């Protein structure tokens, strides 16, 4: 349990003077559900983009189970087992649900162009074998009825689920969830929370969760890191985070400092700014 899977060490990312991530460090243990929270623009998605290799940080070290990720191309990082569910839906909208999920299997498939063109023997067996795995994920996420629908036509909540399925199909070692319940109603949020917990328990996938829904984060995260303006301001269990004065200041402002520290949900109090 306490084996460190991911080490994110003193990473600094800036865009021409704007510092998006300012020397942030954290470790994620194997099997853990680690949450990153912070106000808008704090640098949460930038951290994910560094992990994915979409952005190249100027300083620091990112290490996944002994392998340095810094400087690798996104597709190489994906092959090492980093999967991502995007904040704004990034599905392949002209393809079916099944094809989207099968695309998650693409990095485990080997057929070249010639065997694909013949679609015979090994290439056909490979397609079938990976179809089986894709169907397991479709069952797991309860999206069987949308299997052959174009994902562009599906309702928002279902699209989010397909995107989770596509990431899961990669059989990742670590799964990055960027606001999985943004814009969802209570029912959809609870469904998604159930899927995330099932992924942790049944599939034993380590996850990093970025989310604004504090209720969800406090309920399901094992540990939480809070960042603001690209800097880490706190890290700890949900209980510790809720009582941390720096966190309350970041969310609610300076004047609120001395009052109401024991309230369990700081975000539910109105800001006086």
């Amino acid at each position: 349990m306490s084996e460190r899977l991911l080490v994110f060490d003193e990473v600094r990312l800036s865009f021409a003077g704007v510092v998006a991530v300012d020397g942030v460090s954290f470790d994620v243990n194997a099997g853990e559900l680690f949450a990153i929270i912070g106000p808008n623009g704090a640098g949460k998605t930038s951290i994910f983009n560094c992990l994915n290799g979409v952005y190249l940080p100027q300083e620091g070290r990112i290490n996944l189970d002994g392998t340095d990720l810094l400087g690798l191309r996104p597709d190489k990082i994906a092959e090492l087992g980093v999967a991502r569910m995007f904040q704004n839906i990034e599905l392949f909208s002209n393809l079916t649900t099944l094809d989207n999920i099968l695309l998650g299997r693409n990095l485990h498939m080997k057929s070249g162009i010639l065997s694909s063109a013949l679609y015979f023997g090994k290439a056909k067996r490979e397609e079938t074998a990976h179809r089986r795995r894709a169907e397991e994920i479709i069952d797991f996420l309860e999206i069987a009825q949308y299997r052959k629908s174009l994902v562009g036509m599906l309702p928002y909540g279902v699209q989010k689920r397909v995107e989770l399925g596509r990431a899961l199909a990669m059989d990742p070692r670590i799964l990055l969830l960027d606001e999985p319940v943004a814009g969802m109603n209570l029912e959809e949020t609870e469904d998604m929370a159930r899927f995330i917990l099932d992924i942790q328990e049944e599939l034993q996938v380590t996850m990093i969760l970025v989310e604004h829904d504090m209720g969800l984060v406090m309920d399901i995260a094992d540990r939480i890191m809070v960042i603001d303006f690209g800097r880490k301001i706190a890290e700890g269990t949900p209980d510790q985070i809720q009582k941390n004065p720096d966190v309350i200041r970041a969310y609610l402002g300076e004047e609120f400092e001395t009052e109401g520290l024991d309230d369990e949900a700081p975000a539910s109090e109105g800001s006086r700014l």
Partner: protein
Amino acid sequence: MRGRPALFTRYEADSAMLPTITQRVWLAIGLVAVIGAAVWLPRDWLILIATAFIAAIGVIGLNLVTGYAGQVSLGHAFFLGVGAYAGAAFGGEATEKLVGMGLDVIFWLPLAGLTAGFIGAAIAPIAVRLRGLYLAFLTLGLVFLGEHIFREWESVTGGPGIGRKPGVLRLAGWRFDLDGQIAGYSVTREQQIYWLTLLVLIIMAFAAKNIVRSRIGRAFAAVRDRDIAAEVMGIDLTRYKVLAFGVSSFYAGVAGGLLFTVTGFVNTNSFNLLLSFTYIAMVVIGGAASITGSIMGAAFLTLLPRIIDGAGGVLPFLEVGSTGLLSTSQLERIVFGALIIGFLIFEPLGLNGIWMRLRNYWKAWPFSY
């Protein structure tokens, strides 16, 4: 599963190219009809339809890179030209001025495709850094480069105004491009070219269909729809773009190699921008990201001039000479332009989209859905 042909119990059956018996039967009937049509079609129609078959091969290639992988290419004429001249060099007869190895068609046709394919794959890494309009301009440049090379490289192309003969359709001594006798029945040159090009089209179309339904085709579509997301999912963008250009150019090379065996003569100024645009138009009118649509688009635009010629005798404002309001070739160009605009606005899915809608309508008939 008797009586329930659409119930699949195996993944292989579910992802089959022609899952239902009805589809297989219709395809077989269609093939027999197309093959048999050669017996009674007149010679000029056979040649016209064979040209459509060859164009369809080229359009499938363009559709793979533009329709499936989303990389707009205006350079298709260049690759058609490379294929035509590679075919002529490998399969044509040598003269004192021209290179020609005189290989059999079974060797020179794949070699024509491979030559174009390798050049396509070699150019692709430059194209990988560009997208959309910029990529279109880069590939546009290829056409002009190609026109220059084709004009100047006289030992292969014959030079402007002179040209050369294409690769010879010969296999183990048998000539497809001459009238002959098979088992006592006489077959014309046109019938043989028709059957040969049909065979090549069938092979190439099935191969393309297999590519697009397997992992490679899915990766192409992923690159087209969301390239960053595709990369984060482990799809090497460079590799798949190079592959898309390579395969597309291979198809163009094969089509180019065959295209001029019909007329028996390759001219250096054939591979111009208009040819590229004609192929783009065939993709748009047939339907982007569809193999069936590629074939329909190629057939439609190849047969269109003949249909308009026929209309010349019927429509009063058309004159055969220069006395009328419009000549048939003027009308042809107007219709060509109007069709592209019309399809882009009213039917972006092309002929294939119309076909799918009709099919779904009759599937559900008499209900509306």
